[in-house]
């Protein structure tokens, strides 16, 4: 009687079970049971297949000490040696192959196996002896050879939490404030926990860096270090990296010329660094952390400081030891769209420091704190020579992606919809005429116009952009007067203008939905009505005109 009676199982359950059965006789018995029982064709196929496989394996059992290698393919040899753990047997096989067909790839396979068998013996249970990568792999033109600071420091002093504060368009971006607030909380707790006096250091780089010192202070910095230079107006990663790296090293073992003694910093490098995970921040964070010979946890959404018990021999020095590391920045980052979180730790090795412990932070992860403009901070204007060659990348042109047209502040918005379809260019012209007649007005458009295939003449084409769209997927406006010409008033449009004080609709169809939320409806063709409204506005008689024509 076999261990598994196939008739008691569904095929789906049987599939995985049957792979554990290696005895062909037992499988034959199972096959008989199935034939006598339900006799399911797929089950039989499954068992037969397994029998074939098991029997093939039985036949194929090779003795590496006696087998004739010349009869075997390289793949057969590779498969065979994978199951051999005795290095002497492998050497014997190697010898025979060399005397026989002497196939290079076969020899490589056997040698690899010898390496892995012997390697594992040597390492087991012993101390991990540190060999620098350059010595361990002398044959490699090791890329780390070129990197000046690799293995630069061991056991140096690190202090403070540094926050790289990004600015955009003359403003400290929100994520910079969020990071400063978070850093403030973390370091207050840190100083209490470890009875320390470490600081939050804000780093500002740019053409107008000094303008943001006050904000950086108000949002939580104890020390603001800034570098200001006209050439730094646009972000370019070479000079920015050089500057932030230089600042980080000031006063430490690797300080650049002229920065060996500074009165605001007396340690090697920052203990922690935090960057924004913005386009520029991601770029800069990777380069600075690389230059400082550390790692980076990118795109983090959570940070906390805690001790950590580590058993990784590469970190603790001895296999099997556990060691507690203090003051470790735990950097949480979402994987798989937040399906899972990883917590990244950046920990020193016995022979190499991994500091600063660095993270980039996803904007919006933390609250923006309330600014406190009574706070005080030390301020340092950093000075260094900026080399010409750092600016080889020239910014010739840039475009600021912003809201574009802001319709929200206008007293009056004149919006047109697909009612202009008969002559779209004239429709826009007439709407612009009406806009001009008011003191503070602008042009809005319905989504229907923006997504249409209307051909506009070039002089009005510039006005037909998504930036002028009113409605759910565009702007929401609350002007004193909203004029909706040739707009039927779908719910998505209503959302964008419903809060206007007075809504005046112009439509050929007096029953169009827009009627439901308009104060005045003028029944008529916008091509006729708009010029008359323009005229009325110019004469100061809009109210009279509208009231007269409201049906």
């Amino acid at each position: 009687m076999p261990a598994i009676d196939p008739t008691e199982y569904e095929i789906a359950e049987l599939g995985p079970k049957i792979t554990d059965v290696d005895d062909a006789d037992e499988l034959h018995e199972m096959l008989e049971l199935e034939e006598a029982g339900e006799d399911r064709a797929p089950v039989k196929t499954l068992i037969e297949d397994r029998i074939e496989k098991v029997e093939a394996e039985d036949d194929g059992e090779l003795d590496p000490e006696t087998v004739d290698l010349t009869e075997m393919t390289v793949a057969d040899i590779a498969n065979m040696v994978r199951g051999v753990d005795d290095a002497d047997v492998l050497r014997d096989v190697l010898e025979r192959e060399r005397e026989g067909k002497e196939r290079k790839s076969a020899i490589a396979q056997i040698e690899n196996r010898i390496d892995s068998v012997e390697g594992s013996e040597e390492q087991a249970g012993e101390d991990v002896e540190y060999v620098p990568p350059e010595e361990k792999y002398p044959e490699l033109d090791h890329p780390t050879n070129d990197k000046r600071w690799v293995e630069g420091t061991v056991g140096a002093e690190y202090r403070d939490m540094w926050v790289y504060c990004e600015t955009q368009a003359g403003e400290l971006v929100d994520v910079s404030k969020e990071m400063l607030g978070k850093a403030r909380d973390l370091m207050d707790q840190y100083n209490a926990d470890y009875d320390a006096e470490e600081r939050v250091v804000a780093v500002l780089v740019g053409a107008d860096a000094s303008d943001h010192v006050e904000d950086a202070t108000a949002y939580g910095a104890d020390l603001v270090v800034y570098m200001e230079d006209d050439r730094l107006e646009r972000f370019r990663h070479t000079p920015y990296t050089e500057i932030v790296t230089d600042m980080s090293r000031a006063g430490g073992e690797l300080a650049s010329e002229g920065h060996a003694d500074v009165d605001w910093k007396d340690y090697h490098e920052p203990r922690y660094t935090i960057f924004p995970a913005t386009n520029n921040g991601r770029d800069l964070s990777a380069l600075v952390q690389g230059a400082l010979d550390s790692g980076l946890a990118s795109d983090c959404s959570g940070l906390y400081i805690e001790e950590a018990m580590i058993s990784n021999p590469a970190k603790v020095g001895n296999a099997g030891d556990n060691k507690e590391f203090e003051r470790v920045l735990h950097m949480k980052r979402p994987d798989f769209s937040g399906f899972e979180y990883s917590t990244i730790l950046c920990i020193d090795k016995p022979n190499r420091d991994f500091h600063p412990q660095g993270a980039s932070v996803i904007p919006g992860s933390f609250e923006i704190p309330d600014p406190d403009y009574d706070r005080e901070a030390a301020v340092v204007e950093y000075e260094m020579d900026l080399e010409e060659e750092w600016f080889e990348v020239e910014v010739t042109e840039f475009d600021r992606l912003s809201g574009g047209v802001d319709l929200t502040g206008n007293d009056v918005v004149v919006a047109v919809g697909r009612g202009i379809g008969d002559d779209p260019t004239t429709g826009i012209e007439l709407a612009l005429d009406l806009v001009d007649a008011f003191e503070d007005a602008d042009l809005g458009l319905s989504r229907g116009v923006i997504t249409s295939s209307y051909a506009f003449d070039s002089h009005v084409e510039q006005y037909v952009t998504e930036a002028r769209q009113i409605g759910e997927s565009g702007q929401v406006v609350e002007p004193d007067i909203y004029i909706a010409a040739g707009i039927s008033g779908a719910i998505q449009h209503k959302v964008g203008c419903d809060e206007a004080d007075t809504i005046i609709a112009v439509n050929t169809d007096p029953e169009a939905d827009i009627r439901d939320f308009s104060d005045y409806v003028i029944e008529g063709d916008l091509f006729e009505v708009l010029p008359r409204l323009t005229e009325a506005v110019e004469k100061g008689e809009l109210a009279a005109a509208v009231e007269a024509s409201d049906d």
Partner: protein
Amino acid sequence: MTDHEHYEAVVVGCGPGGAAAAANLARNGVETLVLERGVDAGSKNVSGGLIYAEESAPYTIDGLFPEFREEATERPVTENYIHNVAGDTVKTFDIGDLHHHDTAWADSVLRRRMDSWLADRVHELTHETGGGLLTEVHVTGLLREKGEIVGVTCEELDPIAADIVVAADGVNSELARDAGLMDWEDPDEWFQGVKAVAEMDPDTIDERFDIDDDEGEAHLFSGDLFDGVRGGGFLYTNEASLSIGTVFHLDSIAEERAEPQELLDGLLTHPLMAQWLGEDYHELEYSAKLVPDSKKAALTAPHEDRLVVVGDAAGQMQAQGPIIKGMNHAVTAGALAAEAFADARSRGDPHRAGEFYEQKLHDEGVMDKLRPTSYSVVGKLGEIGPIDGVANAVAESAVGRFGVRAAEGLVERAYNSPMLVSMIPDTKLPYVTLPTVIGEELGEVVTDENHVQPPELDDRIGDLTYDVGDPHIELVDNSFEASGTAVTACPVSATDFGGGCYRDEMVQTNGHEEHLVSLDTQPCVECGTCAVVADTEWEHPAGGKGVEFEQG
């Protein structure tokens, strides 16, 4: 091998096909990642609303997911009728026998509720074997290495490699198209369904249909309700709502320039419906989807390399006259695909899963239901012009009519014969002419007055408001000749309606006038109709973006 994230199995889409595949994979100990593009499983999914468990099927949804019927369905179908309509006259047949043939049970369902319940189970099951379900991930295509399919690419994540990729990504499957297995070329391979879910409290349903709260009804409608467009309608009772919809051959919708929402309104406002809909009609949701015609579209070899395709994505939707079954076949196919992978893996050759899957579809009789041989012999012959014409003429001639009247009992029997029904050709005869004649000759006049006022299209769209993100459909040729059909055929567009997806426009350029079509994907319900009838580059929106059905 490039270093991609790897799972043993990746299942794309968590409808019934994907859920069945994932559950059966997990049950076999396979590490399974399920990717769903909706904010929630079911938020992208629409069906007419009946799910069957067939006695002959190797897998059923309640077999794979115990408590399915208690937790995820609306009402069991206990009564079945077909109504042949000719103007105000209607002849009703009881087609319970056809319905009960091979049916263990059939329940009405709403997909948001059903699929999101399934998704929770799927996540529990797959999590145990090292995977899980991820929502808001849009799988955009197949990952290939040296020309071989080895995984999937996503809009939100890095590519993921797998030993098996189960494409359960629905009727507009981007994976089946990437693999070259499916296209959107022929309108006659598709049906288009539109549906309204109308709110109704359970007591009112019980009273109007004269049923208990653990009973339900399924009604089908055919005849001249629909301006000669080939297709029919349905009404199913849910727990606290009715699903009312129409399903038409897409080629017929396209040819007749029919407006799908008007065809639905034609059904909603027919006097026959008054007894059920009453005075106060409140539509909860308007929805639409394409339905593959398995007779023509079902893939006979739904696999390629490591890819297997299940459910609507593989055209596995059986719509033969009054038999409309899709979800049960998706469930069976999904579970068989999983079984095929488990078999292949236990034989040490996981990449042969596709071949085994195809074999199982045949062995288990699924393929014969989807592509009945009786249809290919008789049905297609009936679609050739002249023969259909003669048959039409016979049915309308005095002799033909006499035949119908004399054969009343025969007609009811014919409707109840699965064999005869599977032979129905896709012409006007069975869908329009014959039911109309039956209605005229045998029917009784319905005198009820229908007070239903269906919502206007813009209100229907307004209730479906959502964030579509970047436009996901590109109109390649915006001339009216190439893409104008979309203006009418798209269920959220209409002639002279500016708020829909497709609008036709007369545009003056350089002195001459062009008839063009413009597209705004904002109101898109992702049905795929325009991919077939217009010249587009069609993709799904990004994960979590686009239409979100609350009922489905």
